[in-house]
Protein backbone atom coordinates (compact mmCIF):
# COMPACT_ATOMS: atom_id res chain seq x y z
CA UNK A 1 0.00 0.00 0.00
CA UNK A 2 2.58 2.61 1.09
CA UNK A 3 5.54 2.69 -1.37
CA UNK A 4 8.92 1.90 0.18
CA UNK A 5 10.80 4.64 -1.66
CA UNK A 6 8.48 7.45 -0.43
CA UNK A 7 8.92 9.55 2.70
CA UNK A 8 5.95 10.61 4.86
CA UNK A 9 4.96 13.58 7.02
CA UNK A 10 2.96 13.70 10.25
CA UNK A 11 0.29 15.66 8.36
CA UNK A 12 -0.06 12.65 6.00
CA UNK A 13 1.67 13.92 2.89
CA UNK A 14 4.02 11.70 0.91
CA UNK A 15 7.08 12.82 -1.04
CA UNK A 16 9.36 11.05 -3.50
CA UNK A 17 12.57 12.60 -4.83
CA UNK A 18 14.11 12.26 -8.27
CA UNK A 19 17.30 14.33 -8.54
CA UNK A 20 16.42 17.78 -7.29
CA UNK A 21 12.71 17.47 -8.08
CA UNK A 22 10.31 16.09 -5.46
CA UNK A 23 6.76 14.90 -6.13
CA UNK A 24 4.22 15.43 -3.32
CA UNK A 25 0.75 14.09 -2.60
CA UNK A 26 -1.45 13.01 0.30
CA UNK A 27 -1.47 9.50 1.70
CA UNK A 28 -4.08 6.80 1.51
CA UNK A 29 -4.76 7.31 5.23
CA UNK A 30 -5.44 11.01 4.58
CA UNK A 31 -7.89 10.35 1.74
CA UNK A 32 -9.71 7.75 3.84
CA UNK A 33 -10.08 10.15 6.75
CA UNK A 34 -11.29 12.94 4.47
CA UNK A 35 -13.83 10.83 2.58
CA UNK A 36 -14.95 11.70 -0.94
CA UNK A 37 -12.76 14.53 -2.23
CA UNK A 38 -14.71 17.11 -4.23
CA UNK A 39 -12.17 19.86 -4.84
CA UNK A 40 -8.40 20.28 -4.82
CA UNK A 41 -6.70 23.68 -4.61
CA UNK A 42 -2.99 23.63 -5.47
CA UNK A 43 -0.19 26.19 -5.76
CA UNK A 44 0.89 27.27 -9.24
CA UNK A 45 4.25 26.80 -10.94
CA UNK A 46 6.61 29.49 -9.68
CA UNK A 47 5.01 29.63 -6.22
CA UNK A 48 7.25 29.03 -3.21
CA UNK A 49 6.31 26.43 -0.65
CA UNK A 50 7.79 26.15 2.84
CA UNK A 51 8.22 23.08 5.00
CA UNK A 52 5.34 22.71 7.46
CA UNK A 53 3.32 25.53 5.88
CA UNK A 54 0.05 25.19 3.99
CA UNK A 55 0.50 24.98 0.22
CA UNK A 56 -3.09 24.25 -0.78
CA UNK A 57 -6.23 22.52 0.36
CA UNK A 58 -8.45 19.55 -0.31
CA UNK A 59 -12.18 19.71 0.14
CA UNK A 60 -14.29 16.68 0.93
CA UNK A 61 -17.98 16.48 1.67
CA UNK A 62 -17.00 16.64 5.35
CA UNK A 63 -14.46 19.45 5.52
CA UNK A 64 -11.80 21.56 3.90
CA UNK A 65 -8.30 20.62 5.02
CA UNK A 66 -4.92 22.22 4.43
CA UNK A 67 -2.26 20.37 2.50
CA UNK A 68 1.12 21.08 4.11
CA UNK A 69 4.32 21.06 2.15
CA UNK A 70 6.78 18.64 3.76
CA UNK A 71 9.71 20.53 2.22
CA UNK A 72 10.86 24.00 1.13
CA UNK A 73 11.18 24.76 -2.55
CA UNK A 74 9.64 26.16 -5.70
CA UNK A 75 6.70 24.57 -7.50
CA UNK A 76 7.60 23.52 -11.05
CA UNK A 77 4.35 21.73 -11.90
CA UNK A 78 0.98 21.06 -10.33
CA UNK A 79 -1.39 18.29 -11.30
CA UNK A 80 -4.07 20.04 -13.37
CA UNK A 81 -5.97 16.77 -13.84
CA UNK A 82 -7.12 16.93 -10.22
CA UNK A 83 -9.17 20.07 -10.93
CA UNK A 84 -11.58 18.13 -13.14
CA UNK A 85 -11.19 14.76 -11.45
CA UNK A 86 -10.69 15.27 -7.72
CA UNK A 87 -11.94 11.70 -7.19
CA UNK A 88 -8.51 10.51 -8.35
CA UNK A 89 -7.23 11.44 -4.89
CA UNK A 90 -9.52 8.75 -3.47
CA UNK A 91 -8.75 6.23 -6.20
CA UNK A 92 -4.97 6.46 -6.54
CA UNK A 93 -3.52 8.77 -3.86
CA UNK A 94 0.06 7.51 -4.16
CA UNK A 95 0.21 7.53 -7.95
CA UNK A 96 -1.99 9.32 -10.45
CA UNK A 97 -3.17 11.84 -7.83
CA UNK A 98 0.24 13.39 -7.16
CA UNK A 99 -0.33 17.07 -6.39
CA UNK A 100 2.81 19.11 -7.06
CA UNK A 101 6.36 18.74 -8.26
CA UNK A 102 8.76 20.94 -6.31
CA UNK A 103 12.37 21.96 -6.96
CA UNK A 104 14.01 21.42 -3.59
CA UNK A 105 16.07 24.15 -1.93
CA UNK A 106 17.73 21.66 0.39
CA UNK A 107 17.52 18.06 -0.83
CA UNK A 108 18.67 16.83 2.60
CA UNK A 109 15.43 18.07 4.13
CA UNK A 110 13.66 14.93 2.92
CA UNK A 111 15.77 12.76 5.21
CA UNK A 112 14.10 14.24 8.29
CA UNK A 113 10.72 12.82 7.17
CA UNK A 114 9.36 9.43 8.15
CA UNK A 115 10.31 6.27 6.29
CA UNK A 116 7.53 3.85 5.36
CA UNK A 117 8.26 1.80 8.49
CA UNK A 118 8.12 4.94 10.68
CA UNK A 119 4.88 6.03 9.05
CA UNK A 120 3.19 2.66 9.49
CA UNK A 121 4.14 2.76 13.15
CA UNK A 122 2.82 6.34 13.37
CA UNK A 123 -0.51 5.22 11.86
CA UNK A 124 -0.70 2.27 14.24
CA UNK A 125 -0.46 4.76 17.11
CA UNK A 126 -3.56 6.54 15.74
CA UNK A 127 -5.78 3.46 15.93
Amino acid at each position, binding site marked *: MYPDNYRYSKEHEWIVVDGEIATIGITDYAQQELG*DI*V*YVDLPRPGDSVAAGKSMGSV*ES*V*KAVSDVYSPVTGEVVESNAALTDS*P*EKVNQDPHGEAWMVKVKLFAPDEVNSLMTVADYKEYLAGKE
Partner: protein
Amino acid sequence: MIRKVRSHVSQNESLLFELSAPGKVAYQLPELDVPPVDAAAALGAANVRDEVAGFPEVSEVEAIRHFTRLSTHNYAIDYGMYPLGSCTMKYNPRINEAVARTEGLAWAHPYQPEALSQGAMDVLAKVEDALVEITGMDAVTLQPAAGAHGELTGLLLIRAALEAQGNPRQTVLIPDSAHGTNPATVTTAGYVVRNIASNDRGMVDLAALERDVDENVAALMVTNPNTLGVFEGNITRICEILHARGAMVYMDGANMNALTGITRPGDFGVDVMHLNLHKTFSTPHGGGGPGAGPVAVKKRLEPFLPLPRLRRAAEAWTWDYDRPQSIGRVRAFYGNFGVLVRALAYIMAHGGEGLRRATLDAILNANYIRKKLEPYYDLPHKAPVMHECVFSDDRQSARGVRTGDIAKRLIDYGFHPYTVSFPLIVHGALMIEPTETESKQEIDLFVDALISIAKEVEEDPELVKAAPHNTRVSRIDEVTAARKPILRWRP
Protein backbone atom coordinates in the same frame (compact mmCIF):
# COMPACT_ATOMS: atom_id res chain seq x y z
CA MET B 1 -39.47 2.35 19.15
CA ILE B 2 -40.31 5.66 17.48
CA ARG B 3 -42.69 7.43 19.84
CA LYS B 4 -42.50 11.09 18.96
CA VAL B 5 -43.56 11.12 15.31
CA ARG B 6 -45.44 9.15 12.71
CA SER B 7 -45.43 9.65 8.99
CA HIS B 8 -48.18 11.73 7.51
CA VAL B 9 -49.06 13.19 4.15
CA SER B 10 -46.71 15.95 3.14
CA GLN B 11 -47.44 17.75 -0.10
CA ASN B 12 -45.02 18.16 -2.96
CA GLU B 13 -44.46 21.71 -4.00
CA SER B 14 -43.28 23.27 -7.24
CA LEU B 15 -41.18 26.38 -7.52
CA LEU B 16 -43.18 29.62 -7.62
CA PHE B 17 -41.86 30.11 -11.15
CA GLU B 18 -43.49 26.86 -12.19
CA LEU B 19 -46.82 27.83 -10.59
CA SER B 20 -46.82 31.15 -12.43
CA ALA B 21 -49.37 32.01 -15.12
CA PRO B 22 -49.66 35.42 -16.82
CA GLY B 23 -52.16 37.79 -15.26
CA LYS B 24 -52.54 36.12 -11.85
CA VAL B 25 -52.25 38.57 -8.97
CA ALA B 26 -52.33 38.29 -5.20
CA TYR B 27 -53.64 41.77 -4.50
CA GLN B 28 -56.60 43.96 -5.22
CA LEU B 29 -56.17 47.71 -5.23
CA PRO B 30 -58.96 50.28 -4.86
CA GLU B 31 -60.00 52.42 -7.83
CA LEU B 32 -57.62 55.30 -8.47
CA ASP B 33 -59.28 58.42 -7.03
CA VAL B 34 -56.80 60.98 -8.41
CA PRO B 35 -55.98 61.80 -12.03
CA PRO B 36 -53.56 59.22 -13.50
CA VAL B 37 -50.02 60.39 -14.20
CA ASP B 38 -47.78 59.01 -16.91
CA ALA B 39 -44.58 58.15 -15.01
CA ALA B 40 -42.40 58.40 -18.11
CA ALA B 41 -43.69 61.89 -18.86
CA ALA B 42 -43.34 63.06 -15.25
CA LEU B 43 -39.93 61.52 -14.43
CA GLY B 44 -38.32 61.08 -17.83
CA ALA B 45 -38.41 57.77 -19.68
CA ALA B 46 -34.84 56.92 -18.59
CA ASN B 47 -35.95 56.81 -14.95
CA VAL B 48 -38.85 54.44 -15.46
CA ARG B 49 -38.14 50.74 -15.16
CA ASP B 50 -39.56 48.17 -17.55
CA GLU B 51 -41.64 45.30 -16.26
CA VAL B 52 -39.45 42.70 -14.51
CA ALA B 53 -39.24 39.82 -16.97
CA GLY B 54 -39.95 36.34 -15.69
CA PHE B 55 -41.27 37.43 -12.30
CA PRO B 56 -43.68 34.78 -10.99
CA GLU B 57 -47.36 35.62 -11.04
CA VAL B 58 -49.52 33.67 -8.59
CA SER B 59 -52.75 34.24 -6.68
CA GLU B 60 -52.90 34.97 -2.96
CA VAL B 61 -53.92 31.45 -1.95
CA GLU B 62 -51.17 29.97 -4.14
CA ALA B 63 -48.57 32.16 -2.47
CA ILE B 64 -49.87 31.24 0.99
CA ARG B 65 -49.99 27.51 0.21
CA HIS B 66 -46.55 27.61 -1.40
CA PHE B 67 -44.79 28.89 1.67
CA THR B 68 -46.95 26.94 4.13
CA ARG B 69 -46.21 23.68 2.31
CA LEU B 70 -42.51 24.46 2.20
CA SER B 71 -42.58 25.18 5.93
CA THR B 72 -43.89 21.65 6.56
CA HIS B 73 -40.77 20.27 4.89
CA ASN B 74 -38.67 21.94 7.53
CA TYR B 75 -37.74 21.33 11.15
CA ALA B 76 -37.64 24.15 13.69
CA ILE B 77 -37.34 24.78 17.41
CA ASP B 78 -41.10 25.38 17.38
CA TYR B 79 -41.58 21.70 16.39
CA GLY B 80 -39.28 20.21 18.97
CA MET B 81 -35.84 19.82 20.47
CA TYR B 82 -32.95 21.13 18.40
CA PRO B 83 -29.92 19.66 20.15
CA LEU B 84 -27.16 21.10 17.94
CA GLY B 85 -24.13 21.24 20.23
CA SER B 86 -22.33 24.56 20.45
CA CYS B 87 -25.25 26.35 18.80
CA THR B 88 -27.56 26.99 21.78
CA MET B 89 -30.76 26.55 19.78
CA LYS B 90 -33.09 27.79 22.49
CA TYR B 91 -36.70 28.80 22.13
CA ASN B 92 -37.28 32.44 21.12
CA PRO B 93 -40.01 33.70 23.50
CA ARG B 94 -42.85 35.48 21.71
CA ILE B 95 -42.62 38.42 24.12
CA ASN B 96 -39.37 39.34 22.31
CA GLU B 97 -41.30 39.66 19.07
CA ALA B 98 -44.08 41.71 20.67
CA VAL B 99 -41.56 44.17 22.13
CA ALA B 100 -39.54 44.42 18.91
CA ARG B 101 -42.74 45.33 17.07
CA THR B 102 -43.41 48.34 19.31
CA GLU B 103 -44.23 51.04 16.77
CA GLY B 104 -41.60 53.57 17.82
CA LEU B 105 -38.87 50.94 17.74
CA ALA B 106 -39.95 49.00 14.66
CA TRP B 107 -40.29 52.17 12.57
CA ALA B 108 -37.26 54.03 13.88
CA HIS B 109 -34.94 55.12 11.06
CA PRO B 110 -31.19 55.35 11.52
CA TYR B 111 -31.15 58.79 9.88
CA GLN B 112 -33.71 60.18 12.32
CA PRO B 113 -32.22 63.13 14.24
CA GLU B 114 -30.91 62.33 17.72
CA ALA B 115 -33.68 64.37 19.30
CA LEU B 116 -36.26 61.98 17.79
CA SER B 117 -34.22 58.84 18.54
CA GLN B 118 -33.83 59.19 22.30
CA GLY B 119 -36.04 56.18 23.04
CA ALA B 120 -34.12 53.91 20.68
CA MET B 121 -30.81 55.22 22.02
CA ASP B 122 -32.03 54.56 25.54
CA VAL B 123 -32.74 50.96 24.54
CA LEU B 124 -29.18 50.63 23.20
CA ALA B 125 -27.79 52.08 26.44
CA LYS B 126 -29.83 49.60 28.47
CA VAL B 127 -28.55 46.69 26.37
CA GLU B 128 -24.96 47.89 26.86
CA ASP B 129 -25.48 48.24 30.62
CA ALA B 130 -27.08 44.81 30.93
CA LEU B 131 -24.27 43.12 29.00
CA VAL B 132 -21.63 44.96 31.06
CA GLU B 133 -23.27 43.65 34.22
CA ILE B 134 -23.66 40.09 32.90
CA THR B 135 -20.06 39.81 31.63
CA GLY B 136 -18.30 41.81 34.34
CA MET B 137 -16.53 43.80 31.65
CA ASP B 138 -16.31 47.62 31.49
CA ALA B 139 -17.76 48.63 28.12
CA VAL B 140 -19.67 47.11 25.21
CA THR B 141 -20.02 47.81 21.48
CA LEU B 142 -23.24 46.58 19.91
CA GLN B 143 -22.14 46.99 16.28
CA PRO B 144 -20.88 43.50 15.27
CA ALA B 145 -23.55 41.64 13.33
CA ALA B 146 -22.68 38.09 14.43
CA GLY B 147 -20.25 36.01 16.48
CA ALA B 148 -17.37 35.78 14.02
CA HIS B 149 -17.75 39.49 13.28
CA GLY B 150 -17.45 40.11 17.02
CA GLU B 151 -14.31 37.95 17.12
CA LEU B 152 -12.72 40.00 14.34
CA THR B 153 -13.69 43.25 16.08
CA GLY B 154 -12.16 41.93 19.31
CA LEU B 155 -8.87 40.97 17.69
CA LEU B 156 -8.68 44.31 15.88
CA LEU B 157 -9.10 45.98 19.29
CA ILE B 158 -6.23 43.91 20.68
CA ARG B 159 -4.09 44.77 17.66
CA ALA B 160 -4.89 48.49 18.02
CA ALA B 161 -4.06 48.48 21.73
CA LEU B 162 -0.77 46.63 21.25
CA GLU B 163 0.11 48.83 18.29
CA ALA B 164 -0.47 51.90 20.45
CA GLN B 165 2.19 50.47 22.76
CA GLY B 166 4.55 50.13 19.80
CA ASN B 167 4.32 46.46 18.76
CA PRO B 168 1.20 44.59 17.56
CA ARG B 169 3.05 41.23 17.92
CA GLN B 170 2.60 38.28 15.57
CA THR B 171 0.86 35.18 16.87
CA VAL B 172 -2.38 34.23 18.57
CA LEU B 173 -2.67 30.98 20.51
CA ILE B 174 -5.77 28.83 20.07
CA PRO B 175 -6.51 25.64 22.02
CA ASP B 176 -7.49 22.67 19.83
CA SER B 177 -10.86 22.63 21.61
CA ALA B 178 -11.77 26.12 20.33
CA HIS B 179 -14.55 27.12 17.98
CA GLY B 180 -13.78 26.65 14.30
CA THR B 181 -14.21 30.32 13.49
CA ASN B 182 -11.35 31.36 15.79
CA PRO B 183 -8.45 30.45 13.47
CA ALA B 184 -10.18 32.17 10.55
CA THR B 185 -10.61 35.30 12.66
CA VAL B 186 -6.96 35.32 13.66
CA THR B 187 -5.83 35.05 10.04
CA THR B 188 -8.24 37.76 8.89
CA ALA B 189 -6.90 40.06 11.63
CA GLY B 190 -3.39 39.59 10.24
CA TYR B 191 -2.07 37.28 12.95
CA VAL B 192 -0.57 33.82 12.71
CA VAL B 193 -2.38 30.96 14.45
CA ARG B 194 -0.52 28.68 16.82
CA ASN B 195 -2.53 25.72 18.11
CA ILE B 196 -2.05 24.45 21.62
CA ALA B 197 -3.01 20.91 22.59
CA SER B 198 -5.52 20.11 25.32
CA ASN B 199 -4.63 17.80 28.19
CA ASP B 200 -6.47 14.52 28.74
CA ARG B 201 -9.21 16.32 30.67
CA GLY B 202 -9.97 18.41 27.60
CA MET B 203 -8.54 21.57 29.14
CA VAL B 204 -5.71 23.97 28.34
CA ASP B 205 -2.40 22.44 29.46
CA LEU B 206 -0.84 25.06 31.77
CA ALA B 207 2.71 23.78 31.38
CA ALA B 208 2.41 23.87 27.60
CA LEU B 209 0.91 27.34 27.80
CA GLU B 210 3.77 28.65 29.98
CA ARG B 211 6.13 27.36 27.33
CA ASP B 212 4.21 28.74 24.35
CA VAL B 213 3.62 32.32 25.50
CA ASP B 214 6.52 34.50 24.41
CA GLU B 215 6.93 38.17 23.45
CA ASN B 216 5.50 37.44 19.98
CA VAL B 217 2.15 36.28 21.32
CA ALA B 218 -0.53 38.95 21.06
CA ALA B 219 -3.33 36.97 22.65
CA LEU B 220 -4.92 33.68 23.54
CA MET B 221 -8.35 32.98 22.10
CA VAL B 222 -10.15 30.70 24.48
CA THR B 223 -13.70 29.36 24.40
CA ASN B 224 -15.00 28.89 27.92
CA PRO B 225 -16.62 26.51 28.56
CA ASN B 226 -14.82 24.90 25.64
CA THR B 227 -16.36 22.85 22.85
CA LEU B 228 -16.30 19.75 25.05
CA GLY B 229 -18.63 21.62 27.40
CA VAL B 230 -15.82 21.65 29.98
CA PHE B 231 -15.19 24.77 32.06
CA GLU B 232 -11.55 25.86 32.00
CA GLY B 233 -11.03 25.60 35.75
CA ASN B 234 -7.63 27.28 35.45
CA ILE B 235 -8.95 30.29 33.56
CA THR B 236 -7.70 32.78 36.19
CA ARG B 237 -4.21 31.28 36.03
CA ILE B 238 -4.38 31.19 32.21
CA CYS B 239 -5.14 34.93 32.17
CA GLU B 240 -2.26 35.59 34.58
CA ILE B 241 0.20 33.72 32.36
CA LEU B 242 -0.81 35.79 29.30
CA HIS B 243 -0.85 39.10 31.19
CA ALA B 244 2.58 38.48 32.74
CA ARG B 245 4.01 38.44 29.23
CA GLY B 246 2.11 41.47 27.98
CA ALA B 247 -0.43 39.45 25.98
CA MET B 248 -4.22 39.55 26.22
CA VAL B 249 -7.02 37.03 26.59
CA TYR B 250 -9.90 36.91 24.11
CA MET B 251 -12.84 34.83 25.24
CA ASP B 252 -15.21 33.39 22.66
CA GLY B 253 -18.51 33.85 24.47
CA ALA B 254 -20.48 31.46 22.26
CA ASN B 255 -20.97 29.18 25.25
CA MET B 256 -22.09 31.95 27.60
CA ASN B 257 -25.32 30.04 28.16
CA ALA B 258 -23.32 27.99 30.66
CA LEU B 259 -22.10 31.01 32.64
CA THR B 260 -24.76 33.74 32.61
CA GLY B 261 -25.76 34.69 36.14
CA ILE B 262 -23.20 32.34 37.70
CA THR B 263 -19.75 33.65 36.86
CA ARG B 264 -18.38 36.59 34.91
CA PRO B 265 -15.49 36.54 32.40
CA GLY B 266 -14.53 40.05 33.51
CA ASP B 267 -13.92 38.73 37.00
CA PHE B 268 -11.62 35.94 35.91
CA GLY B 269 -9.34 38.17 33.88
CA VAL B 270 -10.63 38.18 30.30
CA ASP B 271 -9.69 41.37 28.38
CA VAL B 272 -12.18 41.16 25.53
CA MET B 273 -15.01 38.83 24.54
CA HIS B 274 -18.04 38.61 22.33
CA LEU B 275 -21.55 37.42 23.05
CA ASN B 276 -23.89 35.71 20.59
CA LEU B 277 -27.24 37.29 21.30
CA HIS B 278 -28.79 34.75 18.89
CA LYS B 279 -27.56 31.98 21.17
CA THR B 280 -27.55 33.02 24.81
CA PHE B 281 -30.15 35.75 24.62
CA SER B 282 -32.81 33.99 22.54
CA THR B 283 -32.89 36.12 19.42
CA PRO B 284 -33.64 34.26 16.16
CA HIS B 285 -30.88 31.88 15.13
CA GLY B 286 -30.35 30.39 11.73
CA GLY B 287 -32.29 31.19 8.61
CA GLY B 288 -30.34 34.42 8.34
CA GLY B 289 -31.16 35.61 11.85
CA PRO B 290 -29.86 38.25 11.63
CA GLY B 291 -27.44 37.67 14.46
CA ALA B 292 -25.73 40.06 16.83
CA GLY B 293 -22.25 39.69 18.30
CA PRO B 294 -21.65 42.52 20.78
CA VAL B 295 -18.08 42.83 22.07
CA ALA B 296 -17.32 43.58 25.70
CA VAL B 297 -13.96 44.97 26.80
CA LYS B 298 -11.97 46.02 29.82
CA LYS B 299 -11.21 49.73 30.35
CA ARG B 300 -7.82 49.67 28.63
CA LEU B 301 -9.48 48.65 25.34
CA GLU B 302 -12.39 51.09 25.56
CA PRO B 303 -10.65 53.96 23.65
CA PHE B 304 -10.33 51.66 20.62
CA LEU B 305 -14.00 50.59 20.39
CA PRO B 306 -15.82 51.18 17.08
CA LEU B 307 -17.35 54.61 16.65
CA PRO B 308 -19.73 56.23 17.23
CA ARG B 309 -20.11 55.65 20.98
CA LEU B 310 -23.24 56.43 22.95
CA ARG B 311 -22.64 59.32 25.34
CA ARG B 312 -24.84 61.07 27.86
CA ALA B 313 -24.72 64.83 27.32
CA ALA B 314 -26.96 67.40 28.99
CA GLU B 315 -29.84 65.07 29.87
CA ALA B 316 -29.89 63.46 26.43
CA TRP B 317 -28.16 60.70 24.46
CA THR B 318 -25.79 61.69 21.71
CA TRP B 319 -23.41 59.88 19.32
CA ASP B 320 -19.76 60.59 20.03
CA TYR B 321 -17.61 60.53 16.88
CA ASP B 322 -14.60 62.18 18.51
CA ARG B 323 -12.73 58.96 19.20
CA PRO B 324 -9.21 59.39 17.78
CA GLN B 325 -8.01 55.90 18.79
CA SER B 326 -11.11 54.05 17.55
CA ILE B 327 -10.66 51.18 15.08
CA GLY B 328 -13.51 52.84 13.13
CA ARG B 329 -16.90 51.51 12.24
CA VAL B 330 -17.28 47.76 11.87
CA ARG B 331 -20.84 48.01 10.58
CA ALA B 332 -23.21 50.60 9.14
CA PHE B 333 -25.35 52.39 11.72
CA TYR B 334 -25.60 50.90 15.22
CA GLY B 335 -25.81 47.11 14.94
CA ASN B 336 -28.84 44.91 14.23
CA PHE B 337 -31.16 47.07 16.28
CA GLY B 338 -34.25 44.83 16.17
CA VAL B 339 -32.17 41.93 17.46
CA LEU B 340 -30.81 44.05 20.30
CA VAL B 341 -34.38 44.95 21.31
CA ARG B 342 -35.30 41.25 21.45
CA ALA B 343 -32.27 40.46 23.60
CA LEU B 344 -33.17 43.26 26.00
CA ALA B 345 -36.74 41.93 26.22
CA TYR B 346 -35.34 38.50 27.12
CA ILE B 347 -32.94 39.90 29.72
CA MET B 348 -35.58 42.08 31.37
CA ALA B 349 -38.30 39.42 31.29
CA HIS B 350 -35.94 37.05 33.13
CA GLY B 351 -34.20 39.46 35.47
CA GLY B 352 -30.95 38.43 37.14
CA GLU B 353 -32.46 35.52 39.04
CA GLY B 354 -34.29 34.25 35.97
CA LEU B 355 -31.13 34.29 33.83
CA ARG B 356 -29.32 32.35 36.54
CA ARG B 357 -32.13 29.78 36.66
CA ALA B 358 -32.02 29.38 32.88
CA THR B 359 -28.27 28.68 33.06
CA LEU B 360 -28.69 26.14 35.84
CA ASP B 361 -31.48 24.38 33.93
CA ALA B 362 -29.34 24.26 30.78
CA ILE B 363 -26.50 22.65 32.75
CA LEU B 364 -28.87 20.23 34.49
CA ASN B 365 -30.38 19.15 31.14
CA ALA B 366 -26.96 18.48 29.58
CA ASN B 367 -25.77 16.48 32.58
CA TYR B 368 -29.01 14.49 32.70
CA ILE B 369 -28.52 13.48 29.05
CA ARG B 370 -24.89 12.63 29.66
CA LYS B 371 -25.74 10.39 32.60
CA LYS B 372 -28.59 8.68 30.75
CA LEU B 373 -26.59 8.00 27.58
CA GLU B 374 -23.26 7.10 29.16
CA PRO B 375 -24.11 3.37 29.32
CA TYR B 376 -24.76 3.32 25.56
CA TYR B 377 -22.24 5.72 24.03
CA ASP B 378 -18.52 6.19 24.61
CA LEU B 379 -17.69 9.28 26.68
CA PRO B 380 -14.05 10.11 25.88
CA HIS B 381 -13.64 13.01 28.32
CA LYS B 382 -14.80 12.38 31.86
CA ALA B 383 -14.45 15.92 33.26
CA PRO B 384 -17.72 17.43 34.52
CA VAL B 385 -19.58 19.30 31.81
CA MET B 386 -21.63 22.46 31.73
CA HIS B 387 -24.22 23.10 29.04
CA GLU B 388 -23.35 20.40 26.50
CA CYS B 389 -21.88 16.90 26.39
CA VAL B 390 -19.76 15.17 23.77
CA PHE B 391 -19.83 11.43 23.08
CA SER B 392 -17.85 9.52 20.45
CA ASP B 393 -19.11 6.85 18.06
CA ASP B 394 -16.35 4.48 19.18
CA ARG B 395 -18.66 1.58 20.09
CA GLN B 396 -20.98 2.02 17.10
CA SER B 397 -18.17 2.44 14.56
CA ALA B 398 -17.03 -1.06 15.46
CA ARG B 399 -20.31 -2.13 13.79
CA GLY B 400 -19.64 0.17 10.82
CA VAL B 401 -22.01 2.90 11.98
CA ARG B 402 -20.63 6.42 12.27
CA THR B 403 -21.87 9.52 14.07
CA GLY B 404 -23.40 10.87 10.83
CA ASP B 405 -25.46 7.69 10.44
CA ILE B 406 -26.78 7.91 13.99
CA ALA B 407 -27.66 11.57 13.40
CA LYS B 408 -29.61 10.68 10.26
CA ARG B 409 -31.48 7.91 12.07
CA LEU B 410 -32.38 10.43 14.78
CA ILE B 411 -34.33 12.34 12.13
CA ASP B 412 -36.62 9.30 11.79
CA TYR B 413 -37.33 9.63 15.50
CA GLY B 414 -38.54 13.21 15.04
CA PHE B 415 -35.50 15.11 16.26
CA HIS B 416 -33.08 17.46 14.61
CA PRO B 417 -29.61 15.89 14.63
CA TYR B 418 -27.00 16.85 17.19
CA THR B 419 -23.73 18.39 15.97
CA VAL B 420 -21.79 15.77 14.03
CA SER B 421 -18.00 15.21 13.98
CA PHE B 422 -17.18 18.33 16.02
CA PRO B 423 -15.14 19.13 18.06
CA LEU B 424 -12.34 17.62 16.01
CA ILE B 425 -10.43 16.46 19.10
CA VAL B 426 -13.09 13.79 19.61
CA HIS B 427 -13.06 11.16 16.88
CA GLY B 428 -16.59 10.67 15.55
CA ALA B 429 -18.15 13.20 17.92
CA LEU B 430 -21.82 13.40 18.91
CA MET B 431 -22.13 16.88 20.43
CA ILE B 432 -25.41 17.49 22.26
CA GLU B 433 -26.70 20.74 23.73
CA PRO B 434 -30.31 20.65 24.94
CA THR B 435 -30.47 24.21 26.39
CA GLU B 436 -32.86 25.08 29.24
CA THR B 437 -35.76 25.13 26.79
CA GLU B 438 -36.51 21.40 26.93
CA SER B 439 -38.78 19.75 29.46
CA LYS B 440 -37.96 16.41 31.04
CA GLN B 441 -40.60 14.78 28.80
CA GLU B 442 -38.97 15.99 25.58
CA ILE B 443 -35.48 15.11 26.82
CA ASP B 444 -36.64 11.62 27.83
CA LEU B 445 -38.02 11.09 24.33
CA PHE B 446 -34.67 12.19 22.93
CA VAL B 447 -32.70 9.93 25.26
CA ASP B 448 -34.99 6.99 24.47
CA ALA B 449 -34.48 7.63 20.76
CA LEU B 450 -30.69 7.51 21.07
CA ILE B 451 -30.83 4.41 23.25
CA SER B 452 -33.14 2.75 20.75
CA ILE B 453 -30.72 3.64 17.93
CA ALA B 454 -27.80 2.20 19.92
CA LYS B 455 -29.76 -1.09 20.10
CA GLU B 456 -30.54 -0.95 16.39
CA VAL B 457 -26.82 -0.60 15.73
CA GLU B 458 -26.29 -3.88 17.59
CA GLU B 459 -29.17 -5.73 15.94
CA ASP B 460 -29.44 -4.24 12.46
CA PRO B 461 -26.68 -1.75 11.62
CA GLU B 462 -27.85 -1.53 7.97
CA LEU B 463 -31.13 0.04 9.16
CA VAL B 464 -29.16 2.90 10.71
CA LYS B 465 -26.66 3.20 7.87
CA ALA B 466 -29.45 3.74 5.33
CA ALA B 467 -31.42 6.22 7.45
CA PRO B 468 -33.42 8.39 7.30
CA HIS B 469 -36.32 6.24 6.07
CA ASN B 470 -39.32 8.40 6.95
CA THR B 471 -38.34 11.73 5.41
CA ARG B 472 -39.40 13.19 2.06
CA VAL B 473 -35.94 12.49 0.70
CA SER B 474 -33.39 10.12 2.15
CA ARG B 475 -29.66 10.41 1.60
CA ILE B 476 -28.80 12.75 -1.19
CA ASP B 477 -25.71 12.32 -3.34
CA GLU B 478 -23.57 14.90 -1.57
CA VAL B 479 -20.48 13.95 -3.53
CA THR B 480 -21.92 14.54 -6.99
CA ALA B 481 -23.69 17.64 -5.69
CA ALA B 482 -20.32 19.05 -4.64
CA ARG B 483 -18.30 17.82 -7.62
CA LYS B 484 -20.82 18.65 -10.33
CA PRO B 485 -23.15 21.22 -8.82
CA ILE B 486 -26.20 22.35 -10.80
CA LEU B 487 -26.62 25.94 -9.73
CA ARG B 488 -29.37 27.12 -12.07
CA TRP B 489 -33.04 26.20 -12.12
CA ARG B 490 -32.93 26.21 -15.93
CA PRO B 491 -29.85 26.23 -18.15
